[in-house]
């Protein structure tokens, strides 16, 4: 499409690479003036990267950006702001101890001259904005005292105060309650009526249907299509987002599920802000079975793992392993009950990066014999154990026992964790995003290890944001959305379209 004055933003053939990875590959974006434009894609599809290019946080390797038909070079966010672009990040950037008004004027303070703050005038200006767009917030309230929804409004006000015409909202609904989401959509419409242009990054189909005029879909850094939202159904959108991927075949025999090893009943828990995040979640895993939990990030997966590992309190319900309740005890108790967990954040939770491979290999068993006796470590036993794991799991470089684990590649770090957790001989192995950041060869390896554990009669719970992974590896697919399991399917009946729709909250909509 040619540069056109009627388009607030046009981004043509944007390519951005990080190292060897193409985060964006000739992506197109054309946003009409005075509309709400959604960018839809899975985690890691490149949505945020694209917007960071527009906001000047990244520079594209190639491609052009036009604003109202004029070619611009957005070197940094200052330039973006000067061009009237504002961005509200997923994580708010507010000063907790300041009032709303103070936060809004931060960086663009109104002064009486001589550098004296004119808070009164600033407050008036803020109040005008509040009234104009119906953004109900009290300018004198302190940030730490107001709800997340209000904080988001403060962020929007901040952008408006700086005179933005083009507002980018990065996953604005991820942290909001349903009521707050409705309010936000109302605000967005009012802004557009006032001539602003809004770009919203999301993977929630329902919200796109409810708010956006047009939608651009990106998948794995590739531009897929731009559609009029009114012309497509939710399931068509889901289709485009997920795409028809080639199934990587994973060799495995049919599962022979045994008795129930792990059972979650009506589990409830709250997130860090005290809002309910697990809402009567039920899940069961049998011996000799891999249950895959499919879902989009932020639907309670993280909290579920934390409750199981006793890093978070359960507000209600039970978590049972071999019939024994383990909720609200200690992390150590979870382990001793036969649960091993491969954590999603391997560098933060899974490993002590400054420790050697040896030391990391016994991170949860250092206090057991033969690794230590009466409080004294037996380095030789630890080293021998590690050497065995290194051979068995083909961890490279071999003889890396004395090396700091920081020096190993991501795939080999992951192998150490998996080897360690499997060596605990758990009844239940929980793998959270076990292949995140790994290359194809390493991914295959990890999958094989999980299946091998299943074949040994262990229960395996695989939690992944990659739908492919769940569909290929799991014997049973459970879909999580909004803190509850929306449906469970045997692998043979798991259809990626139905599941994709359910993951994006479309399934519940259809049912309603």
């Amino acid at each position, binding site marked *: 499409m040619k540069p056109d004055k009627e388009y607030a933003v046009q981004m043509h053939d944007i390519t951005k690479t*990080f190292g060897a990875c193409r985060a964006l590959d000739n992506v197109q974006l054309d946003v009409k003036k005075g509309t709400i434009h959604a960018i839809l894609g899975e985690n890691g599809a490149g949505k945020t990267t694209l917007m960071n290019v527009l906001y000047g946080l990244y520079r594209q390797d190639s491609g052009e950006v036009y604003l109202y038909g004029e070619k611009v070079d957005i070197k940094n966010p200052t330039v973006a702001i000067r061009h009237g672009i504002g961005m509200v990040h997923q994580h708010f950037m507010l000063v907790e101890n300041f009032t709303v008004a103070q936060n809004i004027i931060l960086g663009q303070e109104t002064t009486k001259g001589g550098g004296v703050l004119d808070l009164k005038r600033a407050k008036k200006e803020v109040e005008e904005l509040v009234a104009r767009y119906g953004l109900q917030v009290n300018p004198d309230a302190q940030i730490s005292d107001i709800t997340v929804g209000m904080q988001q409004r403060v962020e929007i006000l901040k952008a408006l105060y700086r005179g933005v015409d083009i507002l980018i909202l990065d996953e604005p609904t991820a942290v909001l309650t349903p009521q707050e989401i409705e309010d936000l959509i109302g605000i967005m419409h009012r802004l557009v009526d006032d001539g602003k242009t809004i770009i919203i990054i999301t993977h929630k189909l329902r919200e796109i249907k409810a708010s956006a005029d047009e939608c651009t879909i990106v998948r794995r850094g590739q531009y897929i299509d731009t559609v009029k939202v009114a012309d497509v159904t939710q399931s068509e959108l889901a289709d485009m987002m997920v795409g028809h991927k080639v199934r990587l075949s994973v060799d495995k025999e049919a599962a022979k599920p045994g008795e129930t090893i792990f059972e979650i009943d009506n589990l409830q828990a709250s997130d860090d802000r005290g809002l309910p995040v697990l809402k009567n979640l039920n899940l069961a895993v049998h011996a000799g079975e891999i249950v895959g939990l499919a879902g989009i990030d932020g639907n309670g997966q993280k909290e579920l793992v934390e409750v199981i590992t006793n890093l978070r309190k359960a507000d209600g319900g039970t978590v049972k392993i071999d019939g024994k309740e383990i909720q609200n005890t200690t992390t*150590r108790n979870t382990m001793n009950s036969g649960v091993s967990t491969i*954590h999603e954040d391997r560098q933060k939770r899974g490993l002590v990066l400054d*420790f050697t491979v040896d*030391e990391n290999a016994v991170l949860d068993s*250092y206090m057991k014999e033969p690794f*230590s006796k009466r*409080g004294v*470590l037996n380095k030789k036993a630890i080293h021998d154990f590690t050497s065995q794991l290194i051979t068995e799991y083909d961890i490279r470089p071999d003889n890396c026992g004395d090396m700091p684990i920081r020096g190993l590649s991501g795939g080999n770090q992951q192998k150490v964790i998996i080897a360690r957790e499997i060596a605990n001989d758990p009844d239940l192995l929980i793998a959270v995003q076990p292949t995140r950041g790994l*290359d194809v060869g390493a991914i295959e390896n990890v999958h094989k290890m999980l299946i091998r554990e299943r074949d040994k009669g262990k229960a395996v719970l695989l939690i992944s944001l990659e739908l492919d992974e769940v569909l290929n590896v799991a014997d049973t697919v459970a879909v999580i959305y909004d803190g509850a399991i929306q449906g469970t399917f045997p692998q043979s009946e798991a259809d990626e379209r139905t599941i994709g729709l359910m993951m994006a909250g479309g399934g519940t909509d259809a049912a309603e």
Partner: protein
Amino acid sequence: MQRSEFFKNFWRKPIFATIIAILSGFIVAAIILASAGYNPWTSLGALFYGMFGRPKYISNVIIKSTPIIVTGLSVAFAYKMGLFNIGAEGQYIMGALAANVVGYLVDAPAIIEIPLIILAGVAAGALYGGIIGLLKGRYDINEVITGIMLNWIALYFSNYIVNLEIFHKPNTASMYAINESGYTSLFTQWKTTEAAATFFQEHPFIGDIMRTDVNMGFIIAVALTIFISWVLFKTTKGYQLRAVGYAQEAAEFAGIDVKKNVIQTMLIAGGLAGMAGVLNITGIFPHAVSQLSAFESYGLNGLCVAFIAGGSPIGCILAGLLFGGLLYGGQSLQYMAGAPSEIINIMIGTIVFFVGLEGLVGMIVDRIEKRKAAKSKESGSSDSGKSGSGTGGSDKKETVTTETKQEIQSPELKTLETGKSQ
């Protein structure tokens, strides 16, 4: 290849940065001395003479260093799990006070007396450190704040006890000294004998040393250092502690009780600082606590020592000796060269400052190597670094690219990686 490998690693080792920092301290001191009209050569000469000029001086340097090695050890130990034990000063005071009280009240044979004094001092320091640990572990109150407040409480509490009638030695500013059976000074009896006098005349070297407060303290300090190293690196306790210090979240996930470890660590750190107080009371004249108008800074100097040592227990011995040497040798700077001994504080400050800039040295080394690597790459073929086994610099770069390749949207990871390489 082997040689350059060694050098590359040496430049990157913290000890190299520390040596640079110490040299910088001397250079800055020399510049300031020169600009103030003193001859820097003779002044610094006087400083070194004051440290090593006579056997007696060396002995005094060691004696002076002993307590700060131990407080340094206390700080380094706590720092291994990420705690900043600025409260070592207060723990030192409480340790010395308890040692004095028990050593004065109890009069038993040395074999009982000394362990009893040690027990009292260590327990007092440990409890005092434990308060900080409890507040930190249980209520997450910053250990620096509580540490500083408890330091002042210790100072005034100590002054209060010193002035109690049963403890206060009339016409002095001190308490009654501990009983002689509690002394860890060596050869105190023998020193005054006739035989000793003749022996000293025949062996002036030993005689000179014997004129100082030669005591067991340094040996105990070294033994403690070895013990603490052993605890840190060979026991499960040390393993837990280091895991918490390096990566609290990973430790938590592995089932290590972080709160409990915080409290235990502060108990041990406090005990160590208390032990430093014990060593001063049992080893050095007047074997008693005096009324204090300000901190003696044994604990605070321990912070500098631990910092210069880079948190390494063994390093604390060396840094403590350096520190003790500068403090003691600084006196001769004053009376031999006429230069103000405050220059020592400037020197210590500069060293600490430059140790803090350790990262800077690493960055400079990185940059030099990168430039070298770029040059060699230019001269060589234009291979894209795929062969990997080039310099350390390009190895690191290799990991960065693989990491980013794996994670599409993770600029944090990238900065993490580059942050690491510095």
